[in-house]
């Protein structure tokens, strides 16, 4: 492209040189003709300016010398003589030669012409500034932003009243500033006159702008380059990015106003003594106006935000430790929690006031220590989100889809062990969405959707759980196909009415698949059942929502951490068991009469609702005689309510999970163990697994048998 411009320039320059020759010859005949002088100057000026534009640097540099003398000629400072015309014509021939690529580089002839021309010129004034090769006014856009610390500036900008009349829109300046970094703009509108007095084409507003950027002062000055001359512009550093955190509250409002010189310190002290809201009081006392208070408030908030971010950055950037060390630390804290529980129990028994107070203190400290240690292992989920951008890009290319992945809540933190195990299920869900959910662009456009599909990954907290959603705006689940398949498998009676959520849950059952074709993406053997199992192994739950033609959302709920859970401690004979409290909805009594009424079925009537139950004493083959009144602990998962029969419910218990040794790892119904205050071991029940094995699968089998 540049070559084309160069060719155009050559043609143009040839014409200009011809015109130059004519004009010079004419000028010799009528040396006082202003019009002719202007024409010569313009021809030279254009050759120089355009030459420089298209890379004819030698032409530009040489022509500059001749142009300079003709600038003086047209201003009457140098007279037109035969000598000048001769030199100019000679120069013209040199330019022509250069244009055709002859004699590039150093030329004695050109040096002579330049020297002779300079002799015609009056001595330059002291420190002649005009001709110095000025640095370009604009920074090269390729220059990389410096890797400096983010510095916070206070920019006070009071433009000239006529700024609009010079074609400047301050909003575009603010937009540019926002591109440099975090920016807060606050207008001083107190100078806006009344409606009768206002000139609507003038600017009366001034601004305070708080900007945090690592691009440096020059970048800010460049934003204001066109308006700096006629504006009041001051740029001050208010936070250099280095100050330690001793002052995370930043200045108080009054101090900001004093530091800016808008308020004197004595007046501040006096108002402070009156002990009301400082901003309010200062305005009432007519010391500052509301805009100034507002601006100081914004400054305070801005700087606090900067400090907070810096604090976070330091927190994440400080130290690297192998995660095995952290795991060990978590183990030790677990032991400590156990010992502490024993200490508290012993102190209770001994009733020694001194011991009791020590035990209490240890309990508080242990709690803090536990929370802090667990916190160390928390990582933002964004660390795995970022990997998915690439995955989505590659998959959509492979499958001929157009997909835009958006993520939110990347800062949501999860225990590292949870995060590690979450990767595969999420990858699978994303694959499903792109392969089965989001349609090809043609199909989408036909059904009135934008060709580009949307895939959203969101994470957030909900109580003690983390909620992760994978949502697409694709075709949605085929309700009827799932239903037909479920009926075909005998999992559902043909006329059964079933809520969508439960129907969709079938696709997560083992051996269920409705994919009509097997593609390289989905045909990899892992199905939704594997996803579900993985999530349940993390003691989480998964739920599917979908609307035909509109998309599918899969919601995963996970506990914050795997190491310590809130549990419900129960006993059967002298064995202790723990149920995760998150799964428990209530406890009710089960009397002998209740059992008799059920005619041998393991079901209880809880306020009119039939709830199946699992007799844990039988399940774990514990000898002995159950008490006359047993307890049912009712749990709920995936909208299924199942009861667990135990002898006694003892109460809630902070449970440090110990994994079972390798030998016991395969034991069904038990997910781990914990050590109680007195050193006894309690087994942690695997509620979802028990529920499936004992209730849901037999139920499905019965349906199939029918």
């Amino acid at each position: 492209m540049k070559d084309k411009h160069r060719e155009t320039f050559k043609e143009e320059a040839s014409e200009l040189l011809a015109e130059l020759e004519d004009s010079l010859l004419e000028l010799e005949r009528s040396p006082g003709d202003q019009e002719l002088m202007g024409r010569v100057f313009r021809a030279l000026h254009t050759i120089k300016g355009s030459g420089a534009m298209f890379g004819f640097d030698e032409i530009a540099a040489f022509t500059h010398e001749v142009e300079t003398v003709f600038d003086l000629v047209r201003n009457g400072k140098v007279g037109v003589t035969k000598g000048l015309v001769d030199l100019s014509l000679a120069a013209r021939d040199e330019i022509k030669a250069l244009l055709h690529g002859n004699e590039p580089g150093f030329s004695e002839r050109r040096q002579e012409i330049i020297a002779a021309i300079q002799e015609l010129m009056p001595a330059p004034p002291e420190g002649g500034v005009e001709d110095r090769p000025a640095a370009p006014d604009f920074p090269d856009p390729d220059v990389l932003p410096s890797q400096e610390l983010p510095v916070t500036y206070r920019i006070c900008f009071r433009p000239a009243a006529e700024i609009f009349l010079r074609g400047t829109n301050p909003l575009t300046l603010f937009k540019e500033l926002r591109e440099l970094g975090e920016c807060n703009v606050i207008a001083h509108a107190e100078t806006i006159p009344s409606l009768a007095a206002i000139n609507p084409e003038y600017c009366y507003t001034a601004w305070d702008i708080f900007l945090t950027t690592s691009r440096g002062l020059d970048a800010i000055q460049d934003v204001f380059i066109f308006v700096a001359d006629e504006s009041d512009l001051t740029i001050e550093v208010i936070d250099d990015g280095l100050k330690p955190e001793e002052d995370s509250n930043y200045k108080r409002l009054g101090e900001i106003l004093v530091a800016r010189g808008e308020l004197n310190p004595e007046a501040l002290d006096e108002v402070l003594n009156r002990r009301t809201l400082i901003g309010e009081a200062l305005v009432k006392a007519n010391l500052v106006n509301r805009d100034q208070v507002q601006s100081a408030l914004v400054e305070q908030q801005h700087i606090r935000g900067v400090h907070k971010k810096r604090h976070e950055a330091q927190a994440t950037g400080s130290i690297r430790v192998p995660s095995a060390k952290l795991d060990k630390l978590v183990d030790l804290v677990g032991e400590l929690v156990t010992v502490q529980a024993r200490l508290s129990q012993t102190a209770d028994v001994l009733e020694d006031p001194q011991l009791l107070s020590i035990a209490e203190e240890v309990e508080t400290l242990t709690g803090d220590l536990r929370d802090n240690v667990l916190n160390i292992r928390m990582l933002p989920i964004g660390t795995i989100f970022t990997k998915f951008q690439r995955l989505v890009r590659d998959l959509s290319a492979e499958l001929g889809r157009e997909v835009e992945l958006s993520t939110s809540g990347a800062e949501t933190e999860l225990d590292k062990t949870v995060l590690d195990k979450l990767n595969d299920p999420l990858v699978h869900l994303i694959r499903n969405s792109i392969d089965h959910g989001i349609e090809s662009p043609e199909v989408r456009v036909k059904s009135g959707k934008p060709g580009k599909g949307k895939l959203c990954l969101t994470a957030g907290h909900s109580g003690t759980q983390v909620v992760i959603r994978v949502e697409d705006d694709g075709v949605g689940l085929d309700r009827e196909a799932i239903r037909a398949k479920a009926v075909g498998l005998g999992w559902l009676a043909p006329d059964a009415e079933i809520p969508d959520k439960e129907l969709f849950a079938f696709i997560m059952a083992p051996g269920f698949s409705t994919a009509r074709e097997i593609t390289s993406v989905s045909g990899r053997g892992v199905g939704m059942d594997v996803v579900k199992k993985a999530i349940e192994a993390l003691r989480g739950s998964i739920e599917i929502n979908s609307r035909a033609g509109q998309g599918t959302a899969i919601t995963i709920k996970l506990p914050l951490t795997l190491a310590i859970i809130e549990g419900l401690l129960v006993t059967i004979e002298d064995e202790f068991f723990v149920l995760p409290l998150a799964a428990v909805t209530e406890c009710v009594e089960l009397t002998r009469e209740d059992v008799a009424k059920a005619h041998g079925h393991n079901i209880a009537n809880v306020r009119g609702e039939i709830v199946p139950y699992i007799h844990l004493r039988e399940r774990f083959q514990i000898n002995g005689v159950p008490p006359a009144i047993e307890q049912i602990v009712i749990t709920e998962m995936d909208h299924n309510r199942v009861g667990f029969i135990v002898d006694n419910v003892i109460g809630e218990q902070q449970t440090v999970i110990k994994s079972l040794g390798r030998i016991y790892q395969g034991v069904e119904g038990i997910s781990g163990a914990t050590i109680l205050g007195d050193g006894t071991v309690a087994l942690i029940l695997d509620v979802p697994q028990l529920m499936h094995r004992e209730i849901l699968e037999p139920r499905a089998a019965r349906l199939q048998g029918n």
Partner: protein
Amino acid sequence: MGKVIMNVDDSASVRQMVGFTLQQAGYEVITAADGQDALAKLDGSAIHMVITDLNMPNLDGIGLIRQLRANARYKFIPIIMLTTESQLEKKQEGKAAGATGWIVKPFTPEQLIAVVKKVLG
């Protein structure tokens, strides 16, 4: 809808380069060879911005800027002048006449687009 930019320059090669660069960036371009040509072509039509050379025959850049600012229709549009480094005085004069900003010749297409974005937002 692409914004319309008028480029006024007596150098055909600069007009070509500016016009090409702006069109590549999605702007609509109207060109004029000097101030008078520009005024003739501007008659009442909607223009979002003007980029003008200063040294031109018939009506120069400064004269053009003054005339545009006196016309209610173009009173507030951004006007960028093309100057050379030896024209610092001209720059002041142009600003006084109502120019929004300037670009120093020689400039690259990237610099041109940066300035256009700066004033058009």
